[in-house]
C-alpha cells in the first residue's frame, strides 16, 4: 500500500478526533443493522416497562382453560396455569431484562475497574490483574454459575450476582488495551506533569475516552446475561416466585407443553429471548466495529495501522 512509503507525520489524514459525546448514537444511526437492533430493543423494553398498565390481563388470574389455544381474546393462547400468554410475556421480559441489565452493571463495575487499573498503571498491577482475568476466562462460566446458584439457592438477587461476577473478563481485556493507548496520549501526559492525581486523570481524562467502547461491551454483555438467565432458569435454578422468559420456557417444558401440542406456550418466550439477544448483538457488534481500533483496522491492511496512531498526533500536539 502506498501509505507505507510516506513519512509517519503525513498519515494523520485518517480522521479528525470526533467529539466523544454522540459517538454512540452517531454510530447506531449510520448503520442499518444497529438501527434495526435499537428499534427491536426499544420496543421490547417499552412493552416490558409498561406491563403494569398495558398488559391485557392480570398476571395471577386464570382466564381460561389450561393450555387454551390462541383466540381473538388471547392472541397467543394460555399457559399451563390458564394465564394469558401476552400478559406473561410482558411481565417475563421485565424480569429477564432486569436480570440482564443488573448483572451487566455488576460485571461492568468489576470488568471496568480491572481494565482501567491494569491498563492505566501497567507493570505489576497489570500482570497480576490480567493473570486473574486469564484464569476466569478459561474456567467455563455456565457450570460455575450452576454450582454457585445451586449452593446459594434460587433467588433473583443471587442470579444477578452470580451472572455478574462471571461475565466481566472480556470487558476487562478490551478496556485494558484501550486504556493503554489512551494513557500515552499527550494531553494525559500533560495533565500528569501538571500534577493531577491518578484519580483525577482516570476519571476526567481516561474514562470519558474509553466510555463508548465500554458501552459497546455493555450491550454485548447484556445479551450473554439474558442467555445465562434463561439457561439457569431452564435447569431449575430460577427464582420460583418471579416469572421470567427463561422460567416460562422451563414451565412449558416441565408441564409437557410439547406433547400436549401447546406450541404457543413455548415458542413465543424463546422468540422474544432470541430477539433481545439478536438486537444486543447487532448494536454491540456495530459499536465495537466502529470504535475498537483493532477491529477497524481488520478491514484495512496491517501496515497502515502500525504507522497511524500516536506518532503523528503526538508531534502535532506538542
Amino acid at each position, binding site marked *: *500500500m502506498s501509505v507505507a512509503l510516506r513519512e509517519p507525520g503525513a498519515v494523520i489524514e485518517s480522521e479528525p478526533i470526533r467529539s466523544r459525546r454522540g459517538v454512540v448514537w452517531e454510530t447506531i444511526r449510520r448503520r442499518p443493522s444497529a438501527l434495526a437492533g435499537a428499534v427491536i430493543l426499544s420496543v421490547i423494553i417499552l412493552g416490558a416497562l409498561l406491563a403494569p398498565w398495558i398488559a391485557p390481563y392480570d398476571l395471577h388470574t386464570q382466564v381460561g382453560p389450561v393450555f387454551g389455544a390462541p383466540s381473538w381474546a388471547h392472541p397467543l393462547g394460555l399457559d399451563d396455569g390458564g394465564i394469558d400468554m401476552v400478559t406473561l410475556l410482558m411481565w417475563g421480559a421485565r424480569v429477564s431484562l432486569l436480570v440482564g441489565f443488573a448483572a451487566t452493571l455488576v460485571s461492568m463495575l468489576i470488568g471496568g475497574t480491572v481494565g482501567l487499573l491494569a491498563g492505566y498503571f501497567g507493570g505489576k498491577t497489570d500482570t497480576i490483574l490480567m493473570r486473574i482475568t*486469564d*484464569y476466569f*476466562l*478459561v*474456567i*467455563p*462460566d*455456565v*457450570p*460455575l454459575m*450452576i*454450582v*454457585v446458584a*445451586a*449452593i*446459594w439457592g434460587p433467588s433473583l438477587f443471587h442470579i444477578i450476582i452470580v451472572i455478574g461476577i462471571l461475565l466481566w473478563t472480556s470487558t476487562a481485556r478490551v478496556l485494558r488495551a484501550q486504556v493503554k493507548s489512551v494513557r500515552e496520549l499527550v494531553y494525559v501526559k500533560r495533565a500528569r506533569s501538571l500534577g493531577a492525581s491518578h484519580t483525577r486523570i482516570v476519571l476526567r481524562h481516561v474514562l470519558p475516552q474509553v466510555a463508548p467502547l465500554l458501552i459497546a461491551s455493555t450491550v454485548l454483555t447484556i*445479551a450473554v446475561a439474558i*442467555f445465562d438467565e*434463561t*439457561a439457569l432458569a*431452564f*435447569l*431449575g*435454578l430460577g427464582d420460583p416466585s418471579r416469572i421470567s422468559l*427463561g422460567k416460562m*420456557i422451563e414451565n412449558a*417444558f416441565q408441564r409437557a407443553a*410439547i406433547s400436549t401440542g401447546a*406450541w404457543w406456550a*413455548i*415458542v413465543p*418466550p*424463546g422468540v422474544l*429471548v*432470541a*430477539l433481545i*439477544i*439478536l438486537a444486543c*448483538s*447487532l448494536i454491540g457488534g456495530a459499536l465495537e466495529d466502529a470504535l475498537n481500533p483493532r*477491529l477497524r483496522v*481488520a*478491514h*484495512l*491492511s*496491517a*501496515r497502515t495501522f502500525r504507522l497511524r496512531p500516536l506518532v503523528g498526533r503526538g508531534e502535532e500536539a506538542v
Partner: protein
Amino acid sequence: MKGADYILKRVGFALVTIFVAVTINFALFRLAPGSAVTNLARVPHATPETRLAIKRQFGLDKSKLTQYRIYLVQLMHGNLGVSFANSQPVRDNLKTALINTIPMVLLGTMFAIVIGTLTGVIAAWRRGTGAEAASVTTALGFYSMPTHWLGLMLVILFAGILPTGGMSNEFLINPPFWTHVKDLAAHITLPALTLGLVLFGEYTLIVRSAMLETLGEDYILTARAKGLRPGAILRKHALRNALLPIATLVALSLGYIVAGAILVETVFSWPGIGRAVYDAVLQRDYPMLQGAFLLLTVSVVFFNLVADLLYFRLDPRISE
C-alpha cells in the same frame, strides 16, 4: 530454546488453572453459607449425636486447612466422593456419563466446524453480496437462539420422525448389531444437530472476521497482482493463514460447548455429563455436582492447552 520455554509456560498455566479450579471447588462447597452438615448430608431434625457422627464421618470437625489437605490428597487418588443419589462412587458415575457425552458433542462440533467454516469463508470471500448477507443473518439467528429452546423447536418439528429422548430404544432387547447402530444413530441426530446449529452460528461469525482480516493483508494483494487464480488465492493464501486465529477461537468456545451440552442433554434426556449436572442440581447431589464441575473445568483447560500447543506447531513465528 524458546520453544521449550513456551511449552513449559503453557503447561504451567494449565496446571495452576486446574489448581485454582480445585480450590474454588473446595471453597464453594465447604465455606458455603449454612451448616456444612445440612449441606453435605441433608439430615433434617437430626439429634446432636447424629450431627456429631456425621461431622466426624466427613471430617468436618477438623480445621478448614486440614480438610483442604485431605481433599487434595483424596483427589490425587481419584476419589471424588460418593453420590447422594445412587450411593455409587462419583468417579464411576462420571465415567459412564462421559462415555455417553463424547460422541454426541463430537458429532455436533464437527458439524459446526465444517459447515461454519464453509459459510464463514463464503461470507468473507463474497463480501457485500447477497451470499454474505444470507449467511451472516442465518448465523446470527442461530447464535441468538437459546440452546435448549432451539432443541425444543427441533422436538416439535421432528416429533414422530426421529426419537426425541434417551440414547437408545429401551424396548429393543439384544438387537442385531445393525439395528442397534441404526437405533443409536437415530437417537443421536437431534441432540447433535441442536448443538451443531448453535455452534454453527458462532463459528460462521468467527471464521468470517478471521478471513476478512486475512484478505486485507498485503500478500493477498501481491497474489492477486501476480495473476493467481482466485480459487488458489483463497485456498493457499487466505484460508491457511486464517486457520490460525480460527483454531484459537474454536478452543476458546469450549466453554460455550460445555454449556450447550448441559442444555441439550437436559432437553433430550441424553444420559451424559450435562444430564448428570442437571440431575445433581435437582436432587441437590453435591458430591456429584462438585465432581462434574471439576471434570468439565479440567477438560476445558486441557483442550485449551492442546490448542495452545497446536498453535505453536502451526505458527513458526511463535518459536522465533
